[in-house]
């Protein structure tokens, strides 16, 4: 079976690219807490290392660790390492993470799984929240696409789609993790997103409660990210910052909430990049940022320049939300 990096060119996933840049912009604010160069980035770089390149170049982080499951393809990963300061650790995240001394320095950890939420991921959440130094940032991305019934063999028992989805979900996370109030849901993409979000949140809470049981220096978690996007499958990304009492003021100073993609609650920020030509992008960029805030009057943009561009208004609105993060693709002979 080939890995997802062999099937998809990561750098061609526009929504993921936007998400990455938004995160990077948020990470910049961590500088109020500590020099960004004192942070370590722990991710799952695959063979493209798109996140590693961005964070190294933009944040100046020099201590970067990529967790890679497939030791067998070591040569290829090592070959594709874009910078010398990336250390690739081969193995399962659930046994690699505990050995990374998360308590010794501040980390930005992005558990960027390709997969649907499964039991080993809860172990990773537990490891991060039980051990990490305060000031560390946590991110987790999972595939929340709904499951479909496999094609039926002759004589096989009929099972409803809803039953199948529940069974599939229980097989991944176990009976005890699935919150009671979600047991009766049909796990379509919407509900699957909700339940995944809730299970991750519960695991974070449970681990923090245990960690805080007998310590003086209580640690808290503030959610900052709740992204949903779909380049192919629907992906949910949740994340936030771990902090203690002494960092509370700094955290306020960082004023994450004035970044419009920050989501501290259940409701997700949906990233959806419209497909535009380079010409359209150039024209739109020239009219942005819009001092009228993309407002319309009787179905027309207040901003005349926007109105003149022959792109459907909803795409213009979507683009205006993400134009600073929008990826530029062009075929180039290098």
């Amino acid at each position, binding site marked *: 079976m080939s890995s997802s990096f062999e099937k998809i060119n990561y750098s061609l996933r526009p929504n993921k690219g936007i998400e990455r840049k938004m995160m990077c912009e948020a990470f910049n604010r961590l500088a109020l807490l500590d020099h960004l160069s004192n942070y370590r980035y722990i991710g799952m770089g695959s063979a493209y290392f798109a996140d590693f390149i961005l964070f190294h170049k933009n944040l100046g982080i020099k201590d970067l660790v990529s967790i890679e499951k497939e030791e067998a393809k070591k040569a290829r990963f090592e070959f594709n390492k874009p910078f010398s300061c990336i250390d690739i650790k081969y193995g399962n995240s*659930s046994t690699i993470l505990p050995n990374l001394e998360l308590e010794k320095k501040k980390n930005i950890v992005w558990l960027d799984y390709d997969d649907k939420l499964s*039991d*080993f991921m809860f*172990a990773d959440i537990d490891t991060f929240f039980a051990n990490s130094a305060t000031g560390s940032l946590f991110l987790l991305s999972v595939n929340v696409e709904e499951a479909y019934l496999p094609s039926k063999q002759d004589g096989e028992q009929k099972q409803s789609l809803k039953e199948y989805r529940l069974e599939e979900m229980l097989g991944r996370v176990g009976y005890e993790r699935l919150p009671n109030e979600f047991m009766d849901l049909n796990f379509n993409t919407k509900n699957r997103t909700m339940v995944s979000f809730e299970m991750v949140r519960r695991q974070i809470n*449970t681990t923090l409660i*245990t960690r805080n049981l007998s310590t003086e220096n209580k640690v808290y978690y503030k959610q900052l990210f709740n992204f949903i996007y779909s380049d192919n499958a629907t992906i949910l990304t949740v994340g936030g910052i771990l902090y203690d009492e002494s960092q509370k003021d700094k955290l306020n100073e960082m004023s994450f909430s004035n970044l419009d993609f920050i989501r501290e609650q259940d409701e997700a920020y949906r990233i959806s990049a419209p497909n535009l030509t380079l010409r359209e992008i150039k024209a739109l960029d020239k009219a942005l940022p819009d001092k009228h805030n993309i407002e319309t009057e009787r179905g027309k943009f207040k901003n005349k320049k926007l109105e003149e561009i022959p792109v459907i208004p909803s795409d213009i609105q979507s683009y205006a939300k993400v134009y600073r993060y929008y990826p530029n693709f062009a075929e180039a002979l290098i």
Partner: protein
Amino acid sequence: MSEELNDDPTKVKADPSKDFFISMLVKDITLRDAIGDLVDNAVDAIKAKASNPEALDDYEISINLDIDSFTIKDNGFGMEVDIARKYAFNFGKSHERKLTKKSIGQFGIGMKRAFFKLGSNIHINSIAPSSQFELTIDVNEWQKDTSNNWQFEFDAGKLKENILNNHSVTGLELTITKLSNDSKTSFVDKTFIDKLQKEIALEHMLNINKGLVITINGAKLSANQITLVNDDNIKPTYWEKTAQDESVKIIAGISAKDADDGGWYIFCNNRLIVAKDQTAETVWTGGKGDGVPKYHAQYHRFRGYTFFEANDSSKLPWNTTKTGMDMDSPYYKEVRSKMINMTRQVMDLLDKLKEEKEKGNPEDSQTLNKEVERSLSSPKPVLEVLKETINLDSSFHYPIALFNPIKKSKAVKITYQISPERFEAVKQSIGESNANEIGLKTFDYYYNNEI
């Protein structure tokens, strides 16, 4: 007082009865644990006397049991008359009472419970540094006395106070006769005695390793050392938390593969509470739980040791029968979370050892396995390792660079099916009966002749 209450119509009677008390006390304890409680008390008395709790060579606990009687004798501190008079026989601990530091028993409910469980005639002979006494309890007589008199009496003429006994003669001897039916049937059962010897040896392995002699029906108990690999290649992961009156130390790594010995060990004040645990009580919940995957063959080399110490034994997160941990204790929850993390650290190596051994990887290429085997041949006693924790940290170290799994992507696998007749013909022609080999040879033949 109960007379007065009866006259007061606003009061409700809530007096205890001895019968009820005794039956309640013995209900939740096994014979085996009752004896364990008495051993714990003896160990406490010895620790109270020993000037160096790390060197117990001069101390002995001897236990004898047969169809008529049970005796346990130690050469510890003995019990001072004043302690006996005011505290030791109370049902329930008194707050005024000062406990010996780092005790494990201390004449709590365990001692009385053990008496009643074992038999109905109890005789105690105690020689302490400044007093001595003998005391006999006839449980049946005591029970018959319903006058709400909850006292025992020292044996007449055996009570001496304000004396000076030489340290070499102090100690306590407890003899129980008129054995309970449980005791009678068990004490003639060789299997029971055998199990008792093994379990007491395990529970007090640390004390036995420190020189304490425990004999049961004349047989001296021996205890294995708990061990861990700790060398230049492999270093266990270590975590500790120390406060003024209590501490916990956790150390985890690998040791020689003895299938039964793998798992977690938890000690409270040197008494082994949880041994070789491979269940959810420690960390092995399975992937769907909050711990690590279920224990299985792959983890046989895993060893984790947790040492709780507390001056006040009530601060230890064990259950009241000392047969396991108090799963609701915040202290244990915190420590268990660390244990889970440390198990995952060691599993990183154990998973890789297994992966490297996967079919198709020639033994010569299993470089990590080879190196680990070398280290496993000389594990160190944990107590030695704990003396040099300065060399350890919160990560598990092993020579990861030697990990050499089979490179699946480099090999191409060919499978095909052919008719038995054609196979037979080629088989005869090549002179080889193994289908794999025939496949390889025919490919090689083409390669050598056509490429």
